[in-house]
């Protein structure tokens, strides 16, 4: 049956909380309202205020409290309502959540999931449209996950909640209403495995989260040009599946990384570096990156020029082919 990403994520939370009473969900407006995107819909109604509750608008307090609860038996899932709201919690995430295990010689486990609706495409302007995933991919001790399909939304969220390590879970908010034929519960590939969404021979598009769909649309459009594009969904930025990435580049010889985040120092740079290090002699052209411009996230009427789309990705394919 057809399910949306939002339904998949909501069902994952329901199922995880039903299965394990140590799973708790809290954050801004997640209780009575069920979240501004309704991802926590009916959790409070079903599991009570003790298991799903509203917090003050205090992201550092939310994550810090989750750390303390995780130390002593709980599996907190917290929501950062919008991407830009993660920044006030940066200190707790980077200085404490990520480092406790190492500092304590493994005696402290922090099974915390920080859910972050991220990215643009809904006209929400800066602070509500940002792509901060690479800040956290840079931090040892965190896992960074971003589903591109409803099935992955369900499966990766369940895996995140059962992970003993802290997970930053980036939900592509413009794809909350993306539909897929799937039956829940579903288990897809585990963390650390990239997936070839469309096999091809001309060039490889690497993407995660919201850009997976855009790359799939690009591959369809490219057929008109006679191009057979491969699309690889990275799924988890950390752990990173370099083997699948390298394998694809060996096949196609051309790599284009696509993300909404600004190109400069973005995750695409890491993918490009890995490809250069591991598949240099298989490259027919330099690795190209398609992403947001190096500017603050633009206003609603301008974001369509900022976000990578089919035309910009096809243009990159053309540049790669004509190198």
């Amino acid at each position, binding site marked *: 049956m057809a399910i949306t990403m939002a339904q998949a994520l909501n069902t994952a939370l329901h199922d995880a909380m039903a299965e394990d009473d140590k799973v708790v969900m809290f954050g801004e407006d997640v209780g009575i309202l069920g979240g501004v995107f309704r991802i926590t819909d009916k959790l409070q109604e079903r599991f009570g205020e003790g298991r799903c509750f509203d917090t003050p608008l205090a992201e550092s307090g939310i994550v810090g*409290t989750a750390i303390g609860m995780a130390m002593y038996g709980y599996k907190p899932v917290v929501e950062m309502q919008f991407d830009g709201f993660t920044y006030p919690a940066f200190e707790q995430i980077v200085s404490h959540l990520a480092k406790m295990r190492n500092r304590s010689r493994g005696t402290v486990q922090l099974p915390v999931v920080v859910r972050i609706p991220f990215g643009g495409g809904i006209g929400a302007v800066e602070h509500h449209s940002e792509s901060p995933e690479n800040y956290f991919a840079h931090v040892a001790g965190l896992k960074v996950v971003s589903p591109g399909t409803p099935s992955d939304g369900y499966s990766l969220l369940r895996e995140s909640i059962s992970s003993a390590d802290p997970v930053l879970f980036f939900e592509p908010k413009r794809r909350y209403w993306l539909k897929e034929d799937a039956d829940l519960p579903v288990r897809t590939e585990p963390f650390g495995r990239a997936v070839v969404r469309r096999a091809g021979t001309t060039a490889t598009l690497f993407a995660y989260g919201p850009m997976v769909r855009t790359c799939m649309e690009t591959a369809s459009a490219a057929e008109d040009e006679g191009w057979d594009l491969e699309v690889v969904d990275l799924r988890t930025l950390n752990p990173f599946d370099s083997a699948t990435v390298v394998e694809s580049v060996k096949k196609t010889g051309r790599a284009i990384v696509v993300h909404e985040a600004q190109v400069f120092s973005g995750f695409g740079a890491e993918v490009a570096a890995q490809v250069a290090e591991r598949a240099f002699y298989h490259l027919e052209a330099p690795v190209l990156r398609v992403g947001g411009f190096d500017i603050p996230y633009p206003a609603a009427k301008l974001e369509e020029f900022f976000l990578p789309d089919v035309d910009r990705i096809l243009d990159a394919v053309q540049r790669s082919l004509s190198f």
Partner: protein
Amino acid sequence: MIEDRDTLLGLWQRMTRIRRFEERASTDKEADLLEGYIHNYSGQEAIATGIITQLRADDWITSTYRNHGHSIARDVPLEAMTGELLGRTTGVCGGKGGSMHAVDQDLGMIGGMGIVAGGMPIAAGAALAARRRGQDRVAVTFFGDGAVHQGAFHESMTFAALFNCPVIFVCENNLYAETTAVDYHLIAGSVIAMAEPYGVHATQVDGMDVFAVRDAAEQLIARARYTGRPALLEAMTYRYGGQYEGDTQTYKPPQEVAQWRARDPLLTFRRRVTEPGLLTHGDLDEVAERSRVEVADAFAAAALAPWPDPSVLLTDVYTEIS
């Protein structure tokens, strides 16, 4: 008040251990024998001692980079502390934490945090976990006067008050936020004044008097344990040394250190117990000497302990190496 002899000696033992430890750490740092930054707790011994001795074994504490005193008061073995300062495998974190980051889960020492208000929401979360599980454990979060301007202080007090977290916020007001005087930065006039708007019960106490600290702590801890409500204790004290070892301390008025040293917590204790004849100078000297020897032995043992193998760099970052 009837004071049990063993209890008094226990307080004295902890305070003298901390003082001797910090004196030795200071000397060794000056001689370049220690790695990393050292933040000296001398002058504030009565606070860690007075509060932590009132906690149960299953309660929790968080601290800051100035955590030697809290760790020692919580009975983290001296050799585990010296091992950590010297970066050896015998350290409480196996040499991976360093002076600023002692962690001992078995003793409920959640950890020393390098960020001034970093431990507060974590303590609130631990306390909330206890409450939700029907346990009557409490958490104490130690911090300095400089930490009250960070958002985490306000966020944690809000959370603790809203969700009934039995957490006791202990501000060790040592008159300096790093090198900036409290007269300059503490715009509310006091830290207890900052607790009031959050509905957090707050008390100010003489942090140089271990009995005053202990009695206040006893009440606040019992209150938190029984009601689940948070509380704040502002202990007025003085940091004899600088923000860190090596700090030139040019920002301190010349007479200030002497004025506070006249109210030294160890001297105060000695007077308070010898004048009414609760203990003799001989009793105290014997324990103080034992503390000196224990500390010296612990530093000597650490100096001989093995360095961590470089392979530990790659362990305990994630559950499994992926």
